């Protein structure tokens, strides 16, 4: 069957679905909105077309990929959502905020739409070299870490730690564009392909051995979707854990806090990196690490992925982040440590809304590391 005449079910290889319901049963948003991916798959299996306009809940999906990770039959349920979103994007029928984010990426290389010229502003006062001069490790900063004032604090802390460890690293500065991980998941596959081409070319031109990212979202697409097979793609937690283990980064100052760690979906569930972030936290003197009930593979999504940073979804009242910060507070931890800029923003907001700010502070792992570095 040719691609043109193949049904969605055939193109996305959904025919193997046995309708077991493991996808919807484990879907964190299915518990609070009309989203039912198992049901959507059944519809495309037995009907020629599904009208995506009849399903506003398609924008509820966070691309946490719990469904994909757990599917017994290697059906990639979330890919159907991406496909159906793609139809909406093609028809121009998307929530206004999603449209604006995509336009921002197209025009300025970032979903906020702030000028490309400001992309390196976070680094003011830090001496960070341009990657084009040649470097062993290319640090891909990412959009939120570069532009968001709160996320920038973690970005600066990471840059300072890499400098303290005498790592030969550089950035692409204002030439860097959005990695496209969220763009693809919002259904804009054309723009995503363009970004892969542009960024891919730029990244390869540096000739670095390693590519490190702040965001698990950038990390995921570079590792799994860019075809950067010649480079080692790392999330910062992997790099920093390695620097600590090799003795290149020493943490000497005591951080006497009880900390719990929230596994980001794109780092944990999707890329199975669970131990390195914990290794960093355990290396901080004085820090006491406690676990939430739902940790590692059972971590609860913060609801910030898959374009949800720019779309409210159909149930704003019961945000997963609210539930998550309550779970963190229940451990008795004073700090909820994160390793993702989206988690940082969604969870910090939730702490304020839930009025937990007198008990619980949300910090990126690098902010805790920064507290432990002498000088």
């Amino acid at each position: 069957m040719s691609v043109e005449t193949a049904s969605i079910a055939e193109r996305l290889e959904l025919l193997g679905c046995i309708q077991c319901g493991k996808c919807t049963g484990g879907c964190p948003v299915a518990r609070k909105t009309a989203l039912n991916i198992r049901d959507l798959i059944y519809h495309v299996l037995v009907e020629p077309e599904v009208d995506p306009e009849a399903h506003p809940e398609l924008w509820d999906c966070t691309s946490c990929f719990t469904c994909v990770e757990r599917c017994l039959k290697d059906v990639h349920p979330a890919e159907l959502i991406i496909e159906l979103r793609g139809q909406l994007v093609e028809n121009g029928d998307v929530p206004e905020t999603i449209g604006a984010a995509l336009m921002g990426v197209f025009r300025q290389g970032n979903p906020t739409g702030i000028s490309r010229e400001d992309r390196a502003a976070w680094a003011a006062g830090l001496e960070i070299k341009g990657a084009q001069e040649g470097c062993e490790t290319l640090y891909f900063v990412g959009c939120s870490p570069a532009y968001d004032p709160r996320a920038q604090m973690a970005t600066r802390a990471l840059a300072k730690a890499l400098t303290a460890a005498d790592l030969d690293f550089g950035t692409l500065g204002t030439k860097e564009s959005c990695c496209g991980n969220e763009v693809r998941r919002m259904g804009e596959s054309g723009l995503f392909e363009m970004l892969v081409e542009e960024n891919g070319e730029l990244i390869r031109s540096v000739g670095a051995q390693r590519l490190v990212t702040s965001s698990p979202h950038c990390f995921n697409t570079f590792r799994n979707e860019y075809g950067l097979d010649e480079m080692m793609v790392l999330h910062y937690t992997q790099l920093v854990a390695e620097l600590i283990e090799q003795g290149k980064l020493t943490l000497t100052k005591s951080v006497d806090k009880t900390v719990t760690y929230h596994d980001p979906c794109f780092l944990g569930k999707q890329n199975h990196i669970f131990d390195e972030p914990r290794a960093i936290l355990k290396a901080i003197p004085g820090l006491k690490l406690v676990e939430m009930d739902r940790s590692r593979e059972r971590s609860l999504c913060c609801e910030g992925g898959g374009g949800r940073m720019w779309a409210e979804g159909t149930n704003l009242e019961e945000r997963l982040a609210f539930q998550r910060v309550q779970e963190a507070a229940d451990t008795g931890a004073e700090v909820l440590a994160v390793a993702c800029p989206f988690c940082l923003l969604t969870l910090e907001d939730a702490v304020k809304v839930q009025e937990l700010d007198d008990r619980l502070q949300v910090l990126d792992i690098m902010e805790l590391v920064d507290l432990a570095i002498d000088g």
Partner: protein
Amino acid sequence: MSKEQDKPAALIIGGGIAGIQAALDVADAGYPVYLVEREPSVGGRMAQLDKTFPTLDCSSCILTPKMVDVGQHPNINLMTYSEVISLERQDNTFRARVRQKPRHVDVSKCTGCGACAEACRMKGRVTSQFNAGIAQRSAIYVPFPQAVPLKYTVDPEACLYLTRGKCGKTFLCRDACPADAIDFEQEETLVDVEVGAVIVATGFDLMAPTLKPEFGYGVYPEVMTGLEFERLSSASGPTMGKIVVNDKTPQDVVFIKCVGSRDPHTGVPYCSRICCMYTAKHAHLVRDKLPDARITIFYMDVRAFGKGYEEFYDRVRDEGVIYRRGEAAEVIRRGDRVVVLAEDTLLGQPVEVEADLVVLATAVVPRADAAQVADVVGVTCSPNGFFQEAHVKMHPVETGTDGIFVAGCCQGPQDIPDTVAQAKAAAASAMVALRRLEQAEPGQQEQAE
């Protein structure tokens, strides 16, 4: 064995129900049998079970007589706590080398009284594999009271003397033994046997439930495997059959089927074939013991294809066991209970079921060392790791090597009726091989030493 001196013998590897049945059939036909079992007792998995589906026969009640028979049969040389370490073809027979591990107990003296285990310094501190890890024993032990032979064995991985070279000032077990049977000087012995046919019946393992981390096994004491539940429910188990979790009687019990099965990611693309029925049986046992409990089974499909199986499934539903269609997705903690998250696909809605006990029907997998055993014996493994039959339809118990046969779950998941049938088929095929050998060289077979 005087009458059978000249007859060719069979070697049967594995003393579970498959090996036991095959041994009895071959021996009853008049051929000598070497039955080699690596554990201290025959019995295998079936000895661990409480009741059996669909008839609800007590497993040990129907198994124990057969275990006793293999222990007493004049044509069966029972070699427990032993392993086949090599098998070589010699013309049209095989020479097998069997390693008899030291029990550190003289079986000719041991009366099975148990005074040693009572005295052992490690009493109550060693995990009982027979009890699927939910009970403790001593370092000197019989796996279960009906063991055949009823002889004690020192666990080399748990005995203080064998692991550390020292057990206090004196050996408590040796001091306690009225028969002077304990012998720490005992060494392994190698025995060579010559046989005309081999039946491999080495059984199965269960998938580690931690391969499905979403179910919280090892995190929550409320979550256990089906085999652990068998021991919990068994009158011979640590609670004497009382279903107790966290010192409490469960009010809500949830069973999760297909844990790891039908899932290529866990290396188990196949259906494990026994879980649908043993889960129905488990639900019945809970209903029987806890009439007021709410019992839920999450399932993808119900496969009740055997004789009397659909009727049993009907019976269990009539007893008020709720079948909810949907593969459970996750188990999380809520207060002092756990919650099973799933989609009820018939409702089309995500649901939560609180539980005090969650039982996971974990997949049947090949023995962890199946590949090494295959190598020693000279059979091949199928892509799933079970031993490969010569043809799935036409030669189901033969292997690629003439004279070597397979029976039971080492060939693929099967229930007890199928295992017994297959064991009888393997025995018949082995007897054909032995008979041909007799006819080819009448009176030429030598009894192996």
